């Protein structure tokens, strides 16, 4: 097991000329955690990773590693592992030589290097490919070499910049499982940048959501999805229905709201909204018109328009869908009061 490290960021800001790439980022990355930095492109997530790596210096704020200030340390002094977008393998070196490079830099003994390289090749499942050049490997295999090279010298922190962006969907899923296993086995702190929300939900112990250079929410995947901190987070992760509430009523109909508020925007995830032909006896419901059905196998995706003109999306199990449903039908969209949250 590697000695994992804790990173602290206090009020980190980064500007490029007039452009503010990061503003007031304060967070703690726990020892051994798998933190994902998620956000649309240009949200500052990659800039934050570059600041953590030391390749970019923050304009303001401090960084600590296990409590010691590392703000002004260059990347080579931090000793973090890094997996770059596009892998950045040394094209003229074989798989084994690539993995051995950082160990040679550290002047380890040839015997130690041999053992460690063999271990790493084994860990990432590249046995038998050790003497190949990167150009002779598939994208997924190159990805594994990059991972092995970055982990070979047992870094306290591993930084990954969109490592799966070049892989196709099937391979992505496979690499995600692998990544979780490697994270477990090494115990290192992982900081992972992605713009793929499913990837973030599947991999992370916590997700940090960035938008316009600001940290919008930092929480475990389930909490980010089910209790988004604000409207941006709610809309960025998956689909969501948003209904304006005024005086405890939606479109003039009284509804039971969660918590104490009685105005704002009520958000409900599509899978927590139900459809019925008649007004349900329990819970909240709004009359609506069915505008479209998309059959997706186990689930059917329905789009509705409320009487007040708000579009809704519902994910309904196909096996319990009312018979004879067709676009234009008058229906009710209902939800359990606890499933909604006010933004």
């Amino acid at each position, binding site marked *: 097991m590697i000695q994992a490290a804790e990173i602290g960021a206090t009020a980190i800001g980064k500007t490029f000329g007039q452009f503010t790439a990061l503003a007031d980022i304060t967070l703690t990355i726990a020892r051994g955690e798998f933190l994902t930095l998620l956000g649309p492109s240009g949200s500052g997530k990659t800039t934050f990773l570059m600041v953590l790596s030391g*390749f970019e210096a923050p304009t303001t704020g401090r960084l600590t590693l296990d409590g010691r200030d590392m703000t002004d340390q260059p990347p080579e002094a931090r000793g973090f592992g890094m997996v770059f977008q596009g892998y950045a393998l040394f094209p003229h070196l074989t798989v084994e030589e690539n993995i051995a490079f950082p160990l040679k830099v550290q002047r380890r003994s040839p015997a130690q290097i041999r053992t460690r390289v063999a271990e790493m090749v084994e860990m990432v499942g590249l046995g038998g490919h050790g003497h190949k050049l990167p150009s002779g490997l598939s994208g997924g295999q190159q990805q594994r070499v990059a991972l092995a090279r970055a982990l070979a010298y047992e870094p306290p922190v591993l930084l990954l910049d969109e490592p799966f962006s070049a892989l196709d969907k099937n391979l992505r899923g496979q690499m995600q499982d692998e990544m979780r296993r490697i994270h477990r086995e090494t115990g290192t702190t992982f900081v992972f940048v992605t713009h793929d929300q499913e990837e973030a939900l599947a991999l992370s112990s916590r997700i940090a959501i960035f938008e316009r250079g600001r940290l919008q929410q930092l929480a475990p995947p389930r909490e980010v999805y089910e209790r988004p901190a604000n409207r941006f987070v709610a809309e960025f992760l998956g689909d969501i229905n948003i209904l304006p509430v005024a005086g405890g009523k939606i479109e003039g109909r009284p509804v039971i709201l969660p918590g104490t508020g009685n105005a704002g925007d009520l958000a409900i995830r599509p899978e927590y909204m139900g459809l019925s032909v008649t007004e349900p006896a329990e819970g909240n419901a709004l009359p609506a018109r069915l505008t479209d059905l998309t059959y997706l196998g186990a689930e059917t995706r329905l789009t509705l328009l409320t009487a007040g003109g708000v579009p809704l999306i519902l994910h309904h199990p196909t096996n319990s869908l009312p018979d004879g449903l067709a676009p234009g039908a008058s229906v009710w969209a209902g939800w359990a009061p606890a499933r909604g949250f006010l933004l």
Partner: protein
Amino acid sequence: MTARHVLLLGPLLMLLGAAYLLPFLGVMRWSVTLPEPGFGQYHAALSDPLVLGVIWRTVRICAVVTVIAVAAAYALTLIWVRGGRTARTLVELCIMIPFWISVLTRAFGWLALLSNKGIINGWLQSLGFLSEPLTLVRNEFGVVVGMVHFLIPFAAFPLATAMRSVDERVLLAARGMGASRTRIFWQIFLPMTKNGVLGAALLVFVFALGFFVTPAILGGGRSVMVAELIYLRIFQSPDWGLGAAISVILMVTVGLLLGVMMRQNRGAAR
């Protein structure tokens, strides 16, 4: 190769045929017919100590020029591609301006700088460093200086292409692992641009083999190279057959080296 390709390439092919191929076939014919039919002139060329001496000198000078020009061009191109903005512009000018100036002008420029009564000797003598002028031209030194200066831009272009294709992130990755600048240069950057170096070296060497003006002016008739020897044989002696045979030998050598270069380029592109 469609009809349209032939049409578009036609004028070029015709020009090459009329201006190069036909005359060269004529030269080849001379080499086996003058003064009498047979391969006697090739035998003569390859057994004449004077001709062999010139060929050896040519190869030696070209090798030295290639090494110096490519090394100098590598350093310049490194600044051109990766340096700061001011340094970049400066180096670009240093590479481009000589590139546009005629070879003749440049050779005379060097003569003005390096000759016994030239600027350098003048300064060194008036400052009292020398009592006798240094012999900087009319010898191999002068030829090498002039050729290196001429050929640096030609080496710089393939090197720049190779350096620009190096992925910046690969260098960042090496740096992040704690590799020193020296290690990154020798173990990562230089090997990644190896094909550019080989390409530049071949280009410079092939180009240098046929040099005429620079050695003729800066060598002052004392450091005769192959092209000048051919000129002397054809224009200043009745010995056309021997001149023609040396021409063919030079042409075949250049052709072989070009073949190697193209193969290597194709290998690098793959």
